[in-house]
């Protein structure tokens, strides 16, 4: 995400978030707002070419001004941002070209190094040169990746919907019986919804309404105290954001939903996490549970050391996953509720686990948009659910 900080009487941070998926949009918004807070700047959000969730994009920070420039000023800011973005893009492309150049030269030399007609010492020397060029290619690959400082996500930025959207979403929510002051918990779980029945029953017993959001599927989540919005065909995006924003917490099973929760400032429990580093909750009110990683050839569960090792983190999809059980989910929900009520206190196992994840985070090279080791191996202030931490750490 390219950001432009315009220095003037009151600094202005100009950002065009990635609107292709709610997760990308949520993460970019959360980071942009946090950066603006860090720089003491107002924020100007340029609309992306594709916008999957207009309500999410419309969120307004409570502690700073969201500037909506008009006419010439808007065109001027957009032009400046585009220039900055083009420069960044050229830099990225140049780095990619550099990488490709050295990698191809490396492959050419390796090709000749395998030619048995050439004298052996020359082939050995070609191999050494090739290795040197490969190192250059690797270095060029690391260059353009600017890891996102996960510390930016650590503190939520207070946000709200614009008044008109807020009013319409509130009236929709009231019609469904999920508007404040009613206590609600949002659930955005796409697979294995049947595992949540115990949790839903327990929450309903406390008088909490469970609202199911997201795409949903064929699985139903029904029962007393459940409102399944996935079945509502013409629900407005604002209602979705409104529910997330006012829910006591969110239970989800995708990084997308977790990132939206960063934007809406909702405490979050992530189920079935695959990557222990990238999914680690950045905020103190975040909790996550790892899916059990299984080596499909042997059927053996991978120990934690392996899951924090480079081989697993490079491509976790090579391993099978066993999802969290209903009992684990219920225990984690109870822990999250207690934490929100009384404050979060890590057990020794949870603290140990965080240290190990932070060490893995510092070790690994930047991987993608949110797993960078910036901040000296800071993984996040959240925690692994106690029920798993006791077993794993």
């Amino acid at each position, binding site marked *: 995400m390219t950001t432009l900080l315009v220095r003037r009487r009151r600094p202005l941070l100009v950002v065009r978030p990635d609107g292709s998926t709610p997760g990308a949009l949520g993460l970019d918004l959360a980071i942009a707002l946090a950066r603006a807070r860090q720089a003491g700047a107002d924020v100007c959000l340029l609309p992306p070419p594709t916008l999957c969730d207009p309500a999410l994009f419309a969120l307004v920070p409570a502690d700073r001004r969201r500037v909506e420039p008009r006419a010439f000023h808007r065109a001027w800011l957009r032009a400046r941002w585009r220039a900055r973005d083009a420069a960044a893009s050229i830099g990225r492309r140049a780095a990619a070209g550099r990488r490709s150049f050295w990698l191809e030269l490396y492959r050419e030399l*390796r090709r*000749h190094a*395998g030619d048995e007609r050439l004298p052996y010492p*020359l082939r050995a020397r*070609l191999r050494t040169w090739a290795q040197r060029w490969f190192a250059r290619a690797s270095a060029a690959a690391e260059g353009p990746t600017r890891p996102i400082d996960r510390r930016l996500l650590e503190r939520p930025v207070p946000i709200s919907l614009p008044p008109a959207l807020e009013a319409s979403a509130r009236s929709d929510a009231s019609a469904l019986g999920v508007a404040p002051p009613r206590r609600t918990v949002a659930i955005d779980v796409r697979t294995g919804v*049947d595992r949540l029945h115990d949790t839903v029953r327990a929450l309903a017993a406390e008088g909490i309404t469970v609202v199911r959001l997201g795409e949903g599927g*064929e699985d139903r989540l029904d029962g007393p105290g459940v409102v399944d919005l996935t079945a509502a065909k013409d629900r407005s995006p604002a209602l979705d954001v409104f529910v997330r924003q006012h829910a006591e917490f969110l239970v989800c099973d995708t990084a997308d939903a977790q990132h939206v929760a960063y934007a809406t400032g909702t405490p979050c429990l992530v189920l079935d996490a695959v990557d222990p580093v990238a999914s680690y909750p950045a905020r103190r009110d975040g909790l996550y549970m790892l899916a059990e990683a299984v080596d499909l050839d042997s*059927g053996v569960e991978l120990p934690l050391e392996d899951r924090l090792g480079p081989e697993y983190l490079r491509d976790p999809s090579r391993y*099978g996953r*066993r999802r969290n059980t209903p009992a684990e989910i219920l225990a984690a929900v109870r822990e999250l509720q207690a934490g929100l009520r009384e404050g979060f206190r890590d057990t020794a196992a949870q603290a140990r686990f965080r240290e190990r994840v932070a060490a893995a985070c510092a070790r690994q090279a930047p991987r993608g948009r949110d797993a960078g080791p910036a901040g000296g191996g800071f993984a996040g202030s959240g925690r692994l659910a106690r029920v798993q931490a006791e077993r794993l750490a």
Partner: protein
Amino acid sequence: MTRVLFVMLHPGFIRYYEDAIRALAGEDRHVHVAFEVSGTKLGADVAAARLASSSPYITCGTAPTRAESVRVFLSRGDRTATRSGAADAAGAGRRDRAWESLATTVRLLLDYLRYFEPVFASAGSLRMRAEKRLPRVYRAPVARLARRGRWARAMLSWTLRALERTMPPNRAVEAFLREQRPDVLLVTPLVELGSQQVDYVKCARRLGIPSAVCVASWDNLTSKGLMRVVPDRVIVWNEVQKAEAVALHGARPEQVVVTGAQVFDRWFQARPGRTRDEFCRMVGLDPARPIVLYVGSSVFVAPDEVPFAERWLARLRGAADFTVAEAGVLVRPHPANANQWRLLPPAPGVAVWPPIGTDPTHPDFARDYFDSLYHSAAVVGVNTSAQIEAGIVGRPVLTIRAREFAHSQAGAPHFTHLVREGAALVRAADTLDEHLHQLSDALAGRAPLDEARRFVGSFVRPLGLDVPAVPAFVAAVEALSRQGGSAAPDPWWAAAVRPGVWAVARVAHLLAEDRPLWVYAVRPLITAGVWAAAAVYGVRTAWSGGGRLRVKRARRAAGRLWHQSRRSAGRRLDRASRPVRAVMRGALRRLAGRGA
């Protein structure tokens, strides 16, 4: 004695033709089975050894090694590989490699092109699979051209087919056919993406050997590549495949022979090996409850099937119908996609059988499979040939059109055969609720089986439910061998344009590496640099390893020679000048005497 040469891609195809080959082989007929790729996957090599030992008239061996197999072609284009193999050395192999590269490229392009036809409009994943095999440089231009319409596709296809015809016959394959001297050539499957079996058909035609393609399975004509060169006979299961061979592969109707599905003949005669009680005890299910058999699908069809099965199981257990909710569930993983079932959490009333890792070549494997089908009350699966086997055994077969399998159900033309209106083998449900109703009917014995019987009659045994397919297959091969063939040389123009196409073949060989185009420009410089370095190295080595001494000796020898020759020349000069000097001395003396 008639000699039959049966060329298979790998020994895994034996399972489709084991009975047919045994029936073909006899005192008057020898069958040699040649495998292009020797594989050990799922015990295919064991099956080959077993087949060869079953009769003295059956032999198994390997097909000639290719200068560049499809596998090597694909691995050369792997951009993620950090090693790209040895440089392309000049020599005899270079010519063959270039032609093989062009052949594979042309065939892959044809295979990719077919998926732009309207009939494959919903087969996005099949098109993607074909696209992945192609070097990147061809993808965008071919896709753009193919989307321009029927005429553009036809033109491109015509060009590619013309290229195919101009390519010279594969020398290794031709030599192999000359050595084997078969009376009939059979190939299977021929339609793999980029398949090199086309060369067998082309060489057989050149040598006057009648040839036939044996269509191994029900999806072969719609979910893989094209035949490219249609052999003399196309042996298919049924009329549906005949229509596909004509419409999609350009075969003439008189070329196509319908025999029925040889692979399923044994299912019509099979009897259970155990009683229901024994079977339930073995797999760990309650014999008092009906069994629902869940048959797993292949990797392409269902790469991540366990979450779906878990969801299905959860709904099953929550069904309103007590019989459905309490039914025993037996999961039978697909042998080539079994490992993922290790993730299925153990649950009461659910068994995975046979255990993951069971040897599929074990004699009990087929018996266990039949028993699983026989003792079940209904069979559920996504899209697999086990559903056809269940239909033959007479069990109701069900499926659910799930979103995660859309690519292999609605997106796979062969799936439509199973659910075709009026002769559907499989009852497909759009939702799990609908499926549970169907399952409830099936367990109560209310499922209609007429349509399934009609399907088996038309799809598996089109010549009659009591008429096995193996004798029909043997008769088709016999008829082909009796018919014989006449040698068809290459067209005159093919030889004329071949030198020009050779340049195209060299380019195709280079482009198969799938590298950025600048690499091809830089390569000669790097190659020249490396060989110059090698030359310098050779000179230096020669210098330091004895060269210096030799030069020193030569210099010394030259010095000595010079010294000696100078001395001897001096002596000779001295000798030669002696009379002159004597004359001079005498003259001087005389002059001195006069003076005195």
